[in-house]
């Protein structure tokens, strides 16, 4: 892709002149920040030729909350609770990454039960997040029943989180060394019951949306992201795997006890929206497999290791990364003396994946832009932080 900066003053900021020179008159449309399908407050400026997208420029920052600056004035535990609010669809994963970094820094171990709790909760949340993806993907395609039924399935998991973690969305559950409290006694039974319900709903979703001809026509061949481009753009998660790159942190660099479980990493071939959709649907089934195994061998014992009176990280840089539903989320801590970090940076998978939006959309229709954006599955507050 040749990048030439815009020299034409008439173009709005961010547009490149490289692809202009068409015979018909082009025009610009502003989508967002308040738009039903930009998944929050993403603002897209489209350059259109009729209904065909010539170029997309995303504008971020409409929910930039300065979390990284604020983190420098907070203790690690307080920062941990802020990470819930970054990628709220995978708050456990965010917490997990921060906890990993702190555990590495302070040499805190996690008991077996703690690791199992983490994996179960992580995988439940992966399913939950992918259900939201399914819901929004269906709704963005115009099948409004999907969004409601998808959320109905999600609600089973939310309810479990509500009972176990005490809150429905911003759980604040993990702590360095385990989790904040133990799970109830009937936890595995409840997880199994939820898995059964979700599994049944997934079968229905397949008949409702996956098999549908219109869905296939709307997603197949739309937003093709070639393998090399996906890697160069720094995409991770289902967007990368949709392009056929076998990269899942749970397999490549297993954290926790992920190497104890059997599951497969679904890969796409064409790298189009359809592949990304199928991958997420399959990942939910793989997560159900992990959950089944984890429930079968759920150990007893302590759920966390001894609590430190205060978290003072040794000077240095510490790193923790986890595979969230959207890709690799990592926390990079620069610790100096004291209870507060010198600098905390988190890598947002959504931001990297969003970079693929423009290359994928060019030449497609406005409606396809919505499909493609839905299969990127961005969480805007995670990008903006």
């Amino acid at each position, binding site marked *: 892709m040749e990048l030439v900066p815009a020299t034409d003053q008439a173009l709005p900021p961010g547009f490149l002149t490289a692809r202009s020179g068409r015979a018909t008159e082009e025009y610009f449309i502003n989508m967002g920040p308040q738009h039903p399908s930009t998944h929050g407050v993403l603002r897209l400026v489209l350059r259109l030729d009729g209904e065909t997208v010539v170029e997309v420029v995303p504008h971020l920052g409409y929910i930039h909350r300065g979390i990284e600056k604020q983190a420098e004035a907070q203790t690690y535990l307080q920062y941990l609770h802020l990470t819930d609010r970054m990628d709220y669809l995978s708050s456990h994963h965010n917490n997990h990454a921060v906890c990993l970094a702190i555990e590495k820094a302070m040499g805190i171990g996690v008991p077996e039960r703690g690791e199992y709790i983490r994996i179960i909760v992580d995988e439940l949340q992966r399913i939950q997040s992918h259900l939201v993806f399914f819901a929004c993907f269906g709704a963005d395609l115009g099948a409004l029943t999907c969004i409601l039924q998808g959320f109905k399935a999600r609600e089973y998991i939310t309810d479990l989180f509500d009972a*176990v973690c005490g809150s429905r969305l*911003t759980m*604040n559950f993990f702590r360095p060394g385990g989790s904040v*409290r133990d799970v109830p006694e009937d936890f595995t039974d409840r997880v199994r019951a939820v898995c059964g319900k979700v599994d049944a709903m997934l079968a229905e979703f397949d008949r409702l949306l996956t098999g549908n001809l219109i869905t296939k026509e709307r997603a197949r061949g739309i937003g093709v992201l070639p393998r090399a481009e996906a890697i160069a753009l720094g995409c991770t998660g289902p967007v990368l795997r949709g392009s056929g790159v076998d990269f899942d942190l749970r397999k490549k660099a297993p954290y926790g006890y992920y190497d104890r479980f059997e599951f497969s990493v679904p890969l796409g071939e064409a790298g189009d929206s359809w592949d990304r959709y199928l991958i997420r649907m399959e990942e939910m089934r793989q997560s159900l497999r992990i959950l089944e195994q984890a429930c079968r061998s759920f150990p007893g014992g302590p759920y966390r290791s001894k609590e430190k009176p205060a978290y003072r990280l040794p000077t240095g840089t510490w790193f923790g990364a986890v595979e969230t539903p959207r890709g690799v989320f990592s926390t990079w801590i620069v610790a100096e003396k004291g209870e507060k970090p010198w600098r905390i940076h988190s890598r947002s998978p959504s931001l990297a994946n969003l970079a693929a939006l423009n290359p994928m959309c060019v030449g497609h229709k406005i409606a396809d832009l919505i499909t493609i954006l839905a299969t990127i599955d961005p969480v805007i507050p995670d990008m903006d932080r």
Partner: protein
Amino acid sequence: MTLRERFSMVFGGALSMFKGMAVTGHWLSHPKGIVTEQYPENRKTLAMHPNFRGEVVMPHDAAGEHKCTGCSLCEKACPNGSISVLNTRNLAGKKVLGKYLYRLDSCTLCALCVEACPFDAIRMGQNFELARYDRSGFELTLNQKEGR
């Protein structure tokens, strides 16, 4: 696309449509599948999970005494300064809690204060009906009287 493929697309597509309609038809004809909880109507039976984090409360015993010592650990643990522990001295000259100010408007219900409390003096309540018309009423005093 060959004619055969075209035909299979049309008829396969029609079949997929019917499958989809069968799914929605099943939902349409089975009102038992309705999962709605009717909130204001079910208020009497609605119970939160025991771990649920409502607003911060300070339990008082039968004598109206609380367990807070005014150590301000919760104040330090709070990520957004929602708690002000304002101490006074009691009759014996000992430093005790004077006023426990809790600002519900900025509280994120994260329970870090409850975790930090070594005396089990504060807990997360179960009340969720906290909405108000004006924002000034969100500053609450949790203790009913000064500390011992």
